[in-house]
């Protein structure tokens, strides 16, 4: 447990540092999903940093592609590429594009960034897995604002129609999107009964920053027999950086040098 806690702390520090260095990026939704990615990559997923395209690996699709920093920091921590690369986030010629590029970054299973598409692609990956009688799982992380995209529901309908029990969607339910509170911009609520109505197995994690709770949910999702599973993770946008927490203003902006310093001090405390 201490290992996961230490790992996620390092990932958060890297997120803040790389976005600060790039002077642009999306810290809020990266920090809110840090435990989710840490648990998946360091405990739950079958992946091999020395063989990123291993055929039977579990797949992860960052449907909320703007949270690229948390994916990059996690992959670097796991050893898919050197951590030093994180300094090049969003720089010309870097493998670390503003949104993930599967052809540039070892360990990225799908290029994403345009919301709603990742879950649809993940459903296709899961269908391929079913066709080939594979045991691997497909994980897709969605934002709660992303649920406003119609394609999410086209994919949700197809995933239950094809009984894609190898598909596990996680919703980073931090309640904020770039223009403000999701319930004010365009409420996606109720999220759980929507997915239920679409034929999904639904699990709610009350504290999406609690590894035990997340683990219980993911392990239950893996056992689903004939339905795709969605895990709705209640999280805090900007988690662990006091001035970013629950602040939509930190959806998509880079902290300045002073703010980076303060954030790192908080994360080290």
């Amino acid at each position, binding site marked *: 447990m201490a290992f996961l806690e230490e790992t996620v702390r390092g990932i958060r520090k890297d997120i803040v540092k790389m976005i600060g260095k790039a002077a642009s990026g999306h810290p809020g939704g990266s920090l809110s999903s840090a435990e989710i990615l840490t648990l998946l990559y360091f405990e739950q997923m079958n992946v091999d940093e020395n063989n990123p395209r291993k055929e039977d690996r579990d797949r992860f699709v960052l449907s909320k592609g703007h949270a690229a920093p948390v994916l990059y920091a996690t992959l670097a921590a796991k050893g898919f590429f050197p951590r030093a690369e994180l300094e090049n986030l969003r720089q010309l010629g870097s493998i670390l594009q503003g949104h993930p590029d599967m052809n540039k970054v070892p360990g990225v299973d*799908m*290029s994403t960034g345009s919301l709603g*598409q990742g879950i*649809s692609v993940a*459903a296709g990956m899961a269908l*391929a897995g079913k066709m*080939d009688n594979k045991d691997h799982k497909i994980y897709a992380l969605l934002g709660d604002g992303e649920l406003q995209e119609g*394609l999410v529901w086209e*994919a949700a309908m197809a995933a239950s*129609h094809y009984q894609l029990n190898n598909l596990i969607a996680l919703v980073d339910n931090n309640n904020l999107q770039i223009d403000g509170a999701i319930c004010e911009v365009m409420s996606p609520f109720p999220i759980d009964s929507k997915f239920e109505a679409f034929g999904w197995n639904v699990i709610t994690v009350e504290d999406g920053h609690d590894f035990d709770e997340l683990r219980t949910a993911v392990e239950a999702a893996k056992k689903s027999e004939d339905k795709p599973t969605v895990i709705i993770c209640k999280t805090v946008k900007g988690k662990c950086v006091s001035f970013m927490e629950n602040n939509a203003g930190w959806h998509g902006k880079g902290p300045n040098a002073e703010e980076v310093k303060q954030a790192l001090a908080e994360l080290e405390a």
Partner: protein
Amino acid sequence: MADKKSTRQAYGEYLVKLGEKNQNLVVLDADLSGATKTNIFKKACPERHFNVGIAEANLMGMSAGLATAGKIPFASTFAIFGAGRAYEIIRNSICYPKLNVKIALTHSGISVGEDGGSHQSIEDIALMRVLPNMTVLSPADAVETEKMMDAAMAIDGPVYIRLGRSDVPVLFNEDYQFEIGKAGLLKSGEDVTIVATGMMVGPAMEAADLLKIDAVSASVLNMGSIKPIDVTAIKDAAVNTGALVTAEEHSIIGGLGSAVAEVLCDVAPVPLERVGVKDLFGQSGKVAPLMEKYGLTAKDIVAAAKKAIQRK
């Protein structure tokens, strides 16, 4: 040679043969499998045919996902919904990551007929052509459709194949060779070159015969590969005949006419006349009167050819 067959019919039938040869081939449709003819494949190979319902965006997204796992999806619906509605999924989830998805869309152009302007795609070539990593193919007949499907299978990356609803004459025999990026010189002449694609290749041949009566010698170039386009063939046509006409069942904005104009202004500016839909939506009607109404007949090509020659 007198046989007629739609390119969509040829597509559906040939999918079965391709699917026998390659077990990774899968077919996706969006509730139009009877019209796109993928139901022929479904009958032969139900376990590799997926009808995703009326959800074109998801059609493209799931195809992308299947491609990441080594499948070779052929995604089909009408051109207006595939290239139009699902455009940005094709862009970001298929072309941007260069995934091996073959997008075969039927009911392109105004030859859709009675369904009218809402269903007649006159902009799909433009939309697909502008995408990096995309190959754009537009078959003239049933034989070329099969050859293009072979060519699409042979490359690892996205391909758009533009198919039609109406029966069109079979122009080529089984020995016909197709290569991506190469045009086919169907007729050699001296005064003007007609560059045609898709169902306009037949009228282009007819136009060349009509021009001959007026002592005009016309070349006919079949531009089945719209992207990559055969720059050498266009340059040769410009040098050898000094005037060009393009003919396409598509808007004159962004399609074959634009593609040829781009090449000409780069390598050999000569007069060019574009036969196509003139920045208008289509409408309901039978195919032949529609083609007449929108200026897509052999006679229109003849008039354009004479105009191009005058401008030399």
